[in-house]
């Protein structure tokens, strides 16, 4: 029985904290926010060198072959930094789908450059409706030889204009896969970027018109697993985010003075901060288990993915809301950085389903 991060994971976390606080300080994040692409190309180059881009890519495709708990630790730090760019969608979700669902040939073609930082993947799942279930998709896949042709419109596709390939969920013929890899430069793929509230991220609308696609069917039931990994990934980012918001509010409360003393000496602010951390720490433990359950392929892994998504997103939204309030007027300015996390929390809360939706799933999977 050992419930904690390994030495390697703690080192990974510490080095990520160090790297990101140097290279991805809020001033850098703001550069990405102002840029059209919405990422820091230099940071993306560096993290490839650090091996992050290939972290969960299998070794046979040039990656480190690590697991979800490892990547959760890294995503927590990215959330702490509000790191912009496609990492979560490319190196975690698209990479996971291709690694598990693609043939060796597909893996070689798509994942090797991704691990090396030379290519970017993304995921195209959501549509204008609220359902992520294949039966509700209007996007369809029609078999075409060993491949398929995809038609339909996907919404909120992260970094769609940057992606070299996309992992697309579609309603296939019976027995077909739910997930497909599509080359972004293929004929029939059209990208239109949307305007995001959370400027540390970019999303777009992708229209597929009979676009050539590779079915990802090596592992059965891969699509629901991908959604669970997505839930855990967003939860990890949220953990780091709420931690940062709390740190900022607490730090500010120690230096800002009113009534002749630091505002952090007022009980009201102390209690708000105490309430936030009292939500954060048990939620961290929950997240670790949810990530571990994915790695260990436990039967209850989907249920704990939903628990983590529901809880961490609630805690993140509530935590940033209160952290802004703890700052007073300065917290409402563009100049102060707290709004980066405040808005990112909103993105995280909706992406991959609301807390209410995940609580309902917890109830269903729990047999009640």
């Amino acid at each position, binding site marked *: 029985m050992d419930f904690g991060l390994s030495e390697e994971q703690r080192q990974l976390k510490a080095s990520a904290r160090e790297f990101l606080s140097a290279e991805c300080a809020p001033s850098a994040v703001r550069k990405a926010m102002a840029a059209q692409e919405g990422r820091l190309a230099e940071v993306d180059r560096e993290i490839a060198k650090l091996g992050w881009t290939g972290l969960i890519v299998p070794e046979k495709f040039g990656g480190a072959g690590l697991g979800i708990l490892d990547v959760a630790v890294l995503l927590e730090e990215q959330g702490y930094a509000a790191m912009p760019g496609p990492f979560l969608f490319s190196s975690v979700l698209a990479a996971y789908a291709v690694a598990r669902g693609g043939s060796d040939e597909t893996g070689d073609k798509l994942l090797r450059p991704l691990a090396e930082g030379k290519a970017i993947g993304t995921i195209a799942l*959501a549509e204008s*409706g*609220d*359902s992520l279930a294949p039966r509700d998709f209007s996007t369809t896949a029609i078999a075409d030889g060993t491949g398929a042709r995809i038609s339909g419109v996907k*919404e*909120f596709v992260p970094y769609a204009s940057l992606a070299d390939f996309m992992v697309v969920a579609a309603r296939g013929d019976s027995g077909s896969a739910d997930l497909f890899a599509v080359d972004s430069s293929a004929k029939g793929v059209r990208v239109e970027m*949307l*305007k*995001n*509230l*959370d400027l540390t991220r970019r*999303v777009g*609308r992708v229209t597929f018109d009979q676009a050539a696609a590779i079915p990802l069917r090596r592992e059965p039931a891969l699509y629901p697993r991908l959604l669970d990994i997505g839930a855990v990934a967003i939860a990890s980012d949220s953990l780091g985010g709420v931690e940062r918001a709390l740190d900022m509010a607490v730090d500010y409360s120690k230096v800002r*003075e*009113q*009534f*002749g003393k630091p*505002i952090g000496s*007022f009980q*009201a*602010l102390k209690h708000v901060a105490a309430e936030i951390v009292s939500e954060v720490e048990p939620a961290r433990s929950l997240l670790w288990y949810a990530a571990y359950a994915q790695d260990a392929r436990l039967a209850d892994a989907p249920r704990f993915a939903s628990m983590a998504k529901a809880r961490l997103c609630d805690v993140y939204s509530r935590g940033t*809301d209160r952290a*802004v*309030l703890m700052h*007073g*007027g300065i*917290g*409402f*300015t*563009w*100049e*102060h950085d707290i*709004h980066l996390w*405040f*808005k990112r929390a*909103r*993105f995280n*809360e*909706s*992406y991959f389903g*609301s807390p*209410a939706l995940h609580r*309902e799933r917890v109830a269903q999977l729990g047999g009640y």
Partner: protein
Amino acid sequence: MDLNFTTAEEEFRLKIRRFLEENLPKSGLGAGREGREDKAWLEKSKAWQRKLYESGYVALAWPKEYGGQALDPVCQTIVNDEMVRANAPYLPGGSGLGMLGPTLISWGTEEQKRRYLPKILTGEEIWCQGYSEPGSGSDLASLRTRAEIIGDEFVVNGQKVWTSGAQHADMMFCLVRTDPDAPKHRGISYILIDMHSPGITVRPLVQMTGDKGFNEVFFDNVHVPRKNLVGKLNEGWIVANATLFHERNMLGSATGSEQRFNRLLALTKKIKRGGRALTEDAVFRQRLADLEIRVEAMRFHSLRQLTDQIRGRNPGVETMINKLVGTELNHDLATAAMEAMGDYSMLAREDASVLDHGYWPYEWMFSLGLVIGGGTSHIQKNIIAERGLKMPKSR
């Protein structure tokens, strides 16, 4: 208890309703809170206020001698309700109408009232509030902007911050320190400053929404005539509190909440969740009903306070809670709307696919700003406990 309006009041309501139907500016002036930083907005909305005033629908309860009509506050309530109902644009003279005007009526000299009140009504002079400073937020009384008396003038040096609308303002009602040696609440004076005076610099601050709504204002040897003092020298704190009282009631006003709830309800009827309208979702229905109950409670709560005002009763703890409850309710309404929109809540208000004309992302943020501004919820709770419940002071 009788919630019926008199026939005269009902006729008045129909009159303003008809007026609004016929005269509401057709475009360019949203009822939303955004977009109020630009010059074009200012000119158009000044024209709108003048028209409204000339038609007899501005500050109806003010005394006749200063351009008001000395009507019952019920009429003002009717006007406010109908303005909200018609989605009428915000008035540019809001700070003057809602904050300075009532303060001057109580505390101003006859000359000040005659000089300033009429132009507040017409919108000819736009006012802003000079209260907060970089070092003085919750602890407002620690403010350091100095005014020295030289001859029959104040000479002002210092800085204000979070000054909404300073870029449009002709005048500022401002707190300055006139006796640096006195205990902090006793050396403050309340003066009226011409914003076109030499030595004033206005620098916009950007909100988290990306808009320029408020400003820093710098004073470098700004000369202000002594007759611009409101109340007594060094006794401005009591005048300041009168203004704060009006500000907090304005910020916590129930009038907008009802409209926002209706907008939220209309939005959720259109959103699908699991194949049904979100309004059919048992869980979201609970949330909607809870919000509506709180909105309705605040609506009746303001009618109760209006009645107390007519009856001449001094406001008590039931009034101190307005700002806290009203602003948090508005933020909760906006948060519910964001959650209702699901993934669409991640779009900025400029996006073509944004729902409900992008009203909610802005409102979600701005409403949190109002939870902070005019005394954060933490400060409001101190006031409620100490002044309302007479709990012992801790500072």
